């Protein structure tokens, strides 16, 4: 018991105030200010706003990148472009993207959503290309042999078999999107970045509370998408994967 207590105590000592900030509002850290900050109401408001931006951006990224990646993968063309976009995407600094947007395009939620979407596209495009491309050519030929149209091959053979790879890209894209939407607060949008970058208003505990909530939001996306991946993955390839894992 005594061996457990000190770490718990020191954790509460470090993060307890921030956890309190999430549930209980207090007066602003600015001197003489009577404005109330923090508390569940504000946290939920920021959560809803950042989650909305992130979900819309992820859906837009999917809408643009998935069909393109699947089409290129199915035709087997544009490998260089699909992979290069993925590599270049990793090199784009989130802070630079938001800063360039503020400087040359403007602020507001539409701009932030589009900027954030851009960082979601590369992993989805690359992974859907690679995922479709990796599908066993024998399976595709067999499908063609039984008289499936190209569209049926994509929908009934290639897409189901590529689900794990494609969803891997979607999850990476979601991480990018949640991370970048956080600093969207620099462009006047309500996200947890408002707390993280507003130490003079929210105090140190508010900053850490913002960081905690961003981590929670990102993990929620990750686990949500992992659940969706499980639902979409055909039974056959899950058992196959488990078998190869067991024998590896």
């Amino acid at each position, binding site marked *: 018991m005594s061996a457990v207590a000190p770490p718990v105590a020191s954790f509460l000592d470090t993060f307890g105030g921030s956890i309190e900030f999430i549930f209980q509002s207090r007066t602003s850290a600015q001197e003489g200010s009577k404005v109330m900050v923090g508390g569940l109401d504000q946290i939920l408001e920021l959560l809803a706003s950042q989650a909305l931006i992130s979900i819309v951006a992820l859906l837009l990224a999917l809408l643009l990148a998935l069909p393109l990646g699947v089409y290129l993968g199915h035709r087997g063309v544009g490998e260089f472009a699909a992979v290069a976009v993925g590599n270049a995407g990793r090199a784009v600094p989130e802070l*630079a993207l938001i*800063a360039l947007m503020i400087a040359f395009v403007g602020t507001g939620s539409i701009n932030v959503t589009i900027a954030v979407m851009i960082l979601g596209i590369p992993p989805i495009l690359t992974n859907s290309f690679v995922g479709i491309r990796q599908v066993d050519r024998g399976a595709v030929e067999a499908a063609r042999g039984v008289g499936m149209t190209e569209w049926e091959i994509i929908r009934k053979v290639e897409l189901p078999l590529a689900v794990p790879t494609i969803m891997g890209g979607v999850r990476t894209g979601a991480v990018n999107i949640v991370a970048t939407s956080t*600093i969207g607060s620099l462009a006047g949008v309500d996200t947890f970045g408002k707390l993280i970058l507003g130490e003079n208003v929210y105090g140190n505990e508010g900053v850490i509370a913002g*960081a905690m909530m961003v*981590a929670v939001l990102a993990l929620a996306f990750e686990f949500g998408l992992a659940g969706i991946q499980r639902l979409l993955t055909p039974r056959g390839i899950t058992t196959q994967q488990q078998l190869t894992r067991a024998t590896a």
Partner: protein
Amino acid sequence: MIPVLAQIEVREAGEGATTCQGKNDTFCFDYAIDNLGDYLGPTGEHLLLVVLSVVAGLLIALGLAVISHRRRWLVPVFVGSTGIIYTIPSIALFLLLLPITDRGIATAVIALALYNLQIVYRNSAVGLNNVPASAREAGRGMGMTDRQLLWKVEMPLAMPEIIAGVRIATVSTVAIATLAIFAGAGGLGEVIYTDGIQRDVFKTPIVMGSTICILMAIVLDAVLLVVQRVVSPWRRVRTI
């Protein structure tokens, strides 16, 4: 940082709103050239952050790969735990470490190194696993111990894949390290955020910081590509 700010206020007051940096319509080439020296410090800091965290991440990831190499059941455990760290947005991880490690370069390096673990560990584990059984058996046949086999056969053959992981990790670290400014560790984020956004969105430093950052990623990637070629001479033989 403070002297730089003071110097800039003097400049703006002296030259008024007719000069290109005063108007701040677009990227100001003259200003960027005149103040090229201002970008050296942050660029150096940025490079240091990247090198330290990639090296630290590589060493830890290799350690984990060696541990899990003969204990395969640990592979999903390590992949899962490094994956969860990777999910936490960098800006959040930086700030969550702050109460424990304080503002400064240590916090930034720890966070960035943790990010590198996922990709480098995965590549190292896959690389070690993909070593052809024939090479392993040849080593065994020569009477190598497990340790000799690991360091003289398996590790060298896995090197191209390990370095491929390091390349990806390096390029993303260059990008993520711009956020180190929020952990008090300087770097090019200082040029973009402190000199740019916080000074009424001064466009020139924003463009300069972003450009240097992307160039750094390209150059480091090219350097590592050369390293990758050098450590895998058999691949070159095959392609000739």
